[in-house]
């Protein structure tokens, strides 16, 4: 079973709503910000044609850019995530069959596999986002990126466990 289009749309809508309404309330000022919207880029099915997937990833990024300034930053960081996820997944699972993309879906991952897949990618996104957003890289920025990654991942994991992970998922 793969993540259906309806599920994907609902999750995208929920993530946007979350970012608009809950993030300001849940943020720990100057310390950590939950940004679970990055989950959408991780969730996009690998079975889709690359161009369609790229188009959707860009559209989602642009939507975020329009609603949450600064413009361009969400798309830029999000598309890095989108580009790296396939390589990262192949690195984590070197023995995947040749046609794995046609049958693979995120909801087949176990909790541990999801952590190994999502946490580093979320950190890369946050590191890029905070570094470019502040246009500086020092200890505080690294700490904020790290804490925000953990905070964001908690929400991603919650959504994954509650709505996505199949009961018969491996391992």
């Amino acid at each position, binding site marked *: 079973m793969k993540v259906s289009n309806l599920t994907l749309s609902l999750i995208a809508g929920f993530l946007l709503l979350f970012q608009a309404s809950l993030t300001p309330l849940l943020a720990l000022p100057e310390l950590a910000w939950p940004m679970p919207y990055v989950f959408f880029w991780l969730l996009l099915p690998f079975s889709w044609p*690359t*161009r369609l997937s*790229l188009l959707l990833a*860009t559209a989602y*990024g642009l939507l975020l*850019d329009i609603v949450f*300034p*600064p*413009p*361009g*930053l969400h*798309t*830029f960081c999000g*598309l*890095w995530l989108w*580009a790296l996820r396939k390589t990262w997944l192949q690195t984590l699972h070197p023995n995947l069959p040749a046609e794995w993309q046609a049958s693979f879906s995120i909801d087949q991952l176990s909790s541990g596999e999801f952590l190994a897949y999502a946490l580093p990618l979320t950190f890369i996104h946050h590191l890029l986002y905070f570094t*470019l957003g*502040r*246009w500086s890289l020092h200890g505080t920025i690294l700490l904020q990126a790290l804490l925000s990654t953990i905070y964001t991942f908690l929400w991603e994991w919650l959504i994954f466990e509650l709505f996505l992970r199949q009961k018969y998922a491996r391992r």
Partner: protein
Amino acid sequence: MREWLTLLIHPTFLWVLIQTIAFSLYIRYTPAVNTAIDRVVLSARAAFHRAFLWVRRPWIAMQQVEEMTQLTTQLNEAFTTLQTATGPVSYPLAAWGDFSLLKTYRLLPAEALYKTFHLRANFALLNKGAKDSLYPGLAVVSPRGIIGIIADTTAHTSIMYALFHKDIHVTAILTSQQVFGLTSWKKPVLNRLQLEYIPLYVSVQPGDEVWTAPNSALFPSGLRIGRVTRVETDFTQGFHAIEIATFSDWQRNEPLFVLVPRHP
């Protein structure tokens, strides 16, 4: 054609294209990034001009020797006048109309690495920066009169906006009449400024000196700006249209001094 089209819609090419657009958009609308890029460009420009400065240095030195000789002659004349005068004497000594300034300001010598001459917002790149205790807002004078104001600094360089900049206005005083006005650079002619808001009832004569006013926000008071060269009366405006020739010459390579306040 088909091959080009295939290349254009290749996911990698599309990804790079979208990323470039997104990043450009981000840079375009983010002041911090713009400032950082400006500083990198400024540093690169400063390094370039600093490298070529040593080529021009002998000519600059000769020019400065000539200016120093002239200044010495002027000082000797002024000193002679002072010795032979029976009453109080005022004489145009360098940039300072009011010597009390010297007590409160430190004069930091600086050199213009680069100057613009063709813009409506002319500026110069100085070889002193934040590490020499410069910061935006400091006045810059030449030995003859005021020349500009520090607008931005990096560690080792600064941008000085010239008086011949469309956005630089200095509150000035017409010394003969003790009337306040405002300088502007409406006509893009170098070494010429307009003195505005001098009422029609004030008698202004060509040759009158214009100094910075005590209420000037940019410059300390009593610095010499220029001399009135032309007075036109426009009754529809209600003010004189006054043109002044600045004492400092933007087209010459004059020594520059930044006025750094002395803190108690």
